[in-house]
């Protein structure tokens, strides 16, 4: 990478809590999340841009980086928002979460207050499922009865 623009990486409180929880699940994954942040700050890696899609809203100023345990599928995503602060490129880590159910992208849209109103209910449902799963009271995800 030859770009010489100064880069500053910061982590929001929400994302810090994500990594803290990740560490309680897997010390190794927590460490790898921090390692990713270091690589971003060093300019050694950069993320793939997100899109403006109906489900999440406009997240085109956000980027995703894949990671997981060594030698396994990339189960998690670190998402950062890119801003410019007086000529300094700022990468603000907004969420670090598992990819399943597109949860991480819904979470980012919700945290940035960009979640479309029509998606709010879907987000709440996935969010509750994730919380239930984490508390060990997961119910199988299937067709919902009307």
């Amino acid at each position, binding site marked *: 990478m030859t770009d010489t623009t100064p880069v500053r990486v*910061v982590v929001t409180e929400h994302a810090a809590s994500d990594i*803290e929880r990740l560490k309680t699940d897997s010390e190794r994954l*927590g*460490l790898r999340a*921090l390692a990713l942040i270091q690589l971003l*700050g*060093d300019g050694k890696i950069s993320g793939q841009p997100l899109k403006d899609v109906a489900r999440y809203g406009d997240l085109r100023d956000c980027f995703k980086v894949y990671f997981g345990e060594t030698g396994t599928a990339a189960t998690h995503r670190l998402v950062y928002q890119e801003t410019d602060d007086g000529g300094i490129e700022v990468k603000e880590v907004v969420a670090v979460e598992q990819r399943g159910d597109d949860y991480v992208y819904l979470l980012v849209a919700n945290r940035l207050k960009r979640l479309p109103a029509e998606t709010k209910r879907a987000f709440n449902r996935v969010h509750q499922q994730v919380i239930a799963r984490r508390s060990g009271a997961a119910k199988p995800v299937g067709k919902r009865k009307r």
Partner: protein
Amino acid sequence: MALTDRPEVHPIREARASLPAVARSFGERGIAAGVYYLGAHRKPEAVLVPVDLFDALKSQAEDLIIAARVSERDAMGDERRYTLEQLTDRLGFDPHDVEVAAKQMLAERE
């Protein structure tokens, strides 16, 4: 149409179909073509304007965009931001271990 008039709001589907004609009109008449409101259920959500008109309003638009983004950030303002060093310390990791993991992840990606 005077901008103070109640705007005629074109539904999205209609706007999509009319887009080539609207763009052509903007190209031919410039600012004199006026503006084109669109939105679902007749509720104005966006406005198409000739590029010359936008250029004239650009600096004001930029100020408004920046102010809106600042407000957006202020709404999240109760959130603390951490540097890598602060977060490493908070989570109780050894900075050396983070360095080693970073090198390993970089090697995995190459």
